[in-house]
């Protein structure tokens, strides 16, 4: 056992235990750690945005390098704060409108291609062959079709539609099961990460 002498490790370890204490029941120690996290996160974000965005791309070019073109985005940025003055709060619509318009214009075409066209193409059955690839494609084809039928509400699910939508439910349940399994692994991984920190960095029990 080789307990850490680093005060920052001790602070991190105590805060980790304070958060874990919620597993027993809600308590002031947990509340303190939770509020501290929120405060530190906000402070950290402001700092990062200032040093990585506001200063190098707005303040420095505009006020130090005298690049007057920067005044346009600067004015747009200032308009965001108009929300704080009720009389002029409508000015916020201009930067939001510009941003939404520009970003949608830039993103819609490539997103449509990659999210819809490429994904739809993958559900088209390839030429029949005795291979796992064909089997996989066939399962995806049936799964996509039956799940879409399950979510088709314009006709009552009777007869063949009922049968197909039931197959769709089975595919959905398998999908949810796989997601749940992965979620368990994710949450356990996070716990393992903290326990390794406590046992290794703080207490020095494991190497």
């Amino acid at each position: 056992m080789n307990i850490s002498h680093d005060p920052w490790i001790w602070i991190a370890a105590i805060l980790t235990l304070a958060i874990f204490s919620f597993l027993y029941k809600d308590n002031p120690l947990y509340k303190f750690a939770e509020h501290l996290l929120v405060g530190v996160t906000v402070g950290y974000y402001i700092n990062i945005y200032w040093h990585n965005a506001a200063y190098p791309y707005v303040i420095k070019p505009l006020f130090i390098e005298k690049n007057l073109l920067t005044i346009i985005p600067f004015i747009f940025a200032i308009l965001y704060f108009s929300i704080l003055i009720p009389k002029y709060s409508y000015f916020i619509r201009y930067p939001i409108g510009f941003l939404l318009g520009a970003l949608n214009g830039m993103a819609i075409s490539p997103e449509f291609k990659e999210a819809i066209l490429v994904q739809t193409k993958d559900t088209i059955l390839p030429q029949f062959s005795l291979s796992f690839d064909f089997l996989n494609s066939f399962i995806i084809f049936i799964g996509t079709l039956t799940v879409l039928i399950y979510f088709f509400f314009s006709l009552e699910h009777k007869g063949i539609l009922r049968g197909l939508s039931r197959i769709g439910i089975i595919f959905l349940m398998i999908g949810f099961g796989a997601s749940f399994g992965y979620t368990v692994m994710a949450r356990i991984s996070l716990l393992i990460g903290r326990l390794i920190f406590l046992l290794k960095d703080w207490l020095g029990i494991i190497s």
Partner: protein
Amino acid sequence: MKFLEYLAKIDRRIIYLILVISIIIPLIKPLNLPVGTSHPVKSLFDFIEKQPEGAVILLSVDYDASVYPECHPMARAIARHVLSKNLRLICLTLNPAGTGLALEIITQIPNEYNKKYGEDYVFLGFRPDITATILGLGEDIRKIFPYDYFGNKTDTLKIFKDVKNYDNIALVVSISGSALPVSWIYLARGRYGQDIAAGVTAVMAADYYPYLRTGQFVGLLGGMKGAAEYEKLINKKELATSGMDAISISHILIIIFVIIGNIGYIFVLKRRKK
């Protein structure tokens, strides 16, 4: 019968305690259970492996500390692989909280291989607006990042003498606990045909498999298991590998809990019907 009824009402704190014990024991006394290599992880490894010396890999550290145990080992392993193969590394982050984590990678790992900053690797830092940044990298990296994280003009850095945009980047690897890898697919691949790979948390992994199947991702690391597989492939065992025994044991335990819980639930249902 009373025992089955007790199982259905077992206190969650007892389950937590058993779970923590099941994790701590294999951490203290490792079982060294084998870690296999899955196809999505091997694909990414092979893609980087076959790159010629000097090729550029862009590592986007798009996660924050809340997913550190899953994502950080992935980013470290990939950075190690890239630099050990004498490839060049451009690191950036689209998540403001990822800046410190990326900085840790960039200040530690290149030193292991005696790499020169600005020549073999560079850290561009964080830039807000995902869409504009990803699209801007396809036009001119130096315009979208006029300065690197340390305030150096990117124009003056040697690495950017022959690296202008995606045309000069072999692969973008986005490590993330959110939907950012999909943004890379939509914008960098959709518009510029850039090859993309992803390292994601296990929660997200199931959602990303369709993109792997279509070839929109050249490889995929899913959760701590994916990171451990990559650590095994580069032969440098770190955090992810040390957690693998604990994951296996805790999963067995959870399977047992699920079975016991269901037995108790069925018993309670039958009793109510009577």
